[in-house]
């Protein structure tokens, strides 16, 4: 499968490192192989250059005229509804979950562990019950077949 996401003007990227870590920016212009000009009017990132190895490309792309000003980028961003679309992605939810997990205190972590134990216990119980049922059904059907023969 060919590449789907390209470094191109209008591509929305997730900042993975540096001062603006965890924010969304739009690529405005490409400076060279390693650096791009980005702008994040909706995430409080001023127009600046960023290294490409601290950007992760998302599937979103907004359309604005080539090297548009911040105002133009903001307009396109809001028109495309990027903030809401991003929140619905699995990626954003995982980021959110990770943040939540980091915030847990020792007691919270303990409670989570206990809750998971209870859930897993319930799940395995159900699983074994089903397994038993299937096994029983199989053996009865097999015995019936044997009787017919």
């Amino acid at each position: 499968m060919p590449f789907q996401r390209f470094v191109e003007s209008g591509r929305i990227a997730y900042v993975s490192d540096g001062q603006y870590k965890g924010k969304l920016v739009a690529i405005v212009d490409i400076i060279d192989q390693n650096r791009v000009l980005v702008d994040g009017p909706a995430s409080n990132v001023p127009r600046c250059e960023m290294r490409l190895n601290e950007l992760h490309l998302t599937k979103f792309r907004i359309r604005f005229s080539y090297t548009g000003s911040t105002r133009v980028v903001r307009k396109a961003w809001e028109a495309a509804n990027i903030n809401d679309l991003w929140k619905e992605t699995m990626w954003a939810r995982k980021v959110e979950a990770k943040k939540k997990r980091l915030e847990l205190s020792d007691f919270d972590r303990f409670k989570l562990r206990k809750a998971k134990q209870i859930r897993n216990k319930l799940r395995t119980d159900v699983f074994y019950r089903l397994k038993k049922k299937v096994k029983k059904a199989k053996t009865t059907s097999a015995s019936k077949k044997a009787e017919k023969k």
Partner: protein
Amino acid sequence: MADTEVKETSVQENKNTPAEMKKGRKGGRIRPRNYDLGNGVYRFSRTRMFHKKAVYKFIGKKTPKTVKPKKPITIEKKISGDKNGEKRIVLLKKRRANYPTEDPVTVHHSKKCFRDHRRYLRPSLKPGTICILLAGIHKGKRVVFLKQLKSGLLLVTGPFLINACPLRRVSQNYVIATSTRINVSGLKIPAHINDDYFKRKREKRAKKEEGDIFSKKKDEYKPNDQRKADQNVVDKFVIAAIKRNKEKKMLFTYLSAMFGLRSSQYPHRLKF
């Protein structure tokens, strides 16, 4: 502020000659006419200052140098008597007659005894905080911090009923304070529970005459009745305090469980 003052002085200067101004000025600090605006940028440029200072008045003028008469250091003295060379050059200011052979004794600040040391307590440690013990026989256990003793050590209890950690002293360096806290306000710890209470009692060695010194067996530690009674008093209160908590059931299991790290958990990255 500074700006207005600058104007005033400049006006004054126009009227009076600089020499007069010096006389008229009152004592105290004089603010410089030109000042730094920040980043090395000054309020007035060189040309502005040239005119403000009226440097043009002094160009080409030279004030005559006042030459101070030099004071002599030595003096020539006549010496009477023959074979004395008649005269000698003598210092007006006599040199010191003697110099110290040793360095002077400097005053050292007095060293403080251990009991006078200032005790610190981490702000995360407050009475009722649940701590994780990191050292000693009970390491890994979650215990309740009660108070700081005079020696700076923490008084801690399991409670004994929950995780078999008795009333104990621990250094705060060997403890992780968690953010979980039990409300133990109103807890009165018996006054006799202090550092001496926890001190190890050592029996004196048997004298040479009294049998073999190696034959004596080591006594195993057993808590005396006093300790048991104190443990009961404190634990009763602490357990009652836990029971008053909303999550009492979870807290009981939490305290009875040991602390441990799982894979990809790093204590310096965790929040406690």
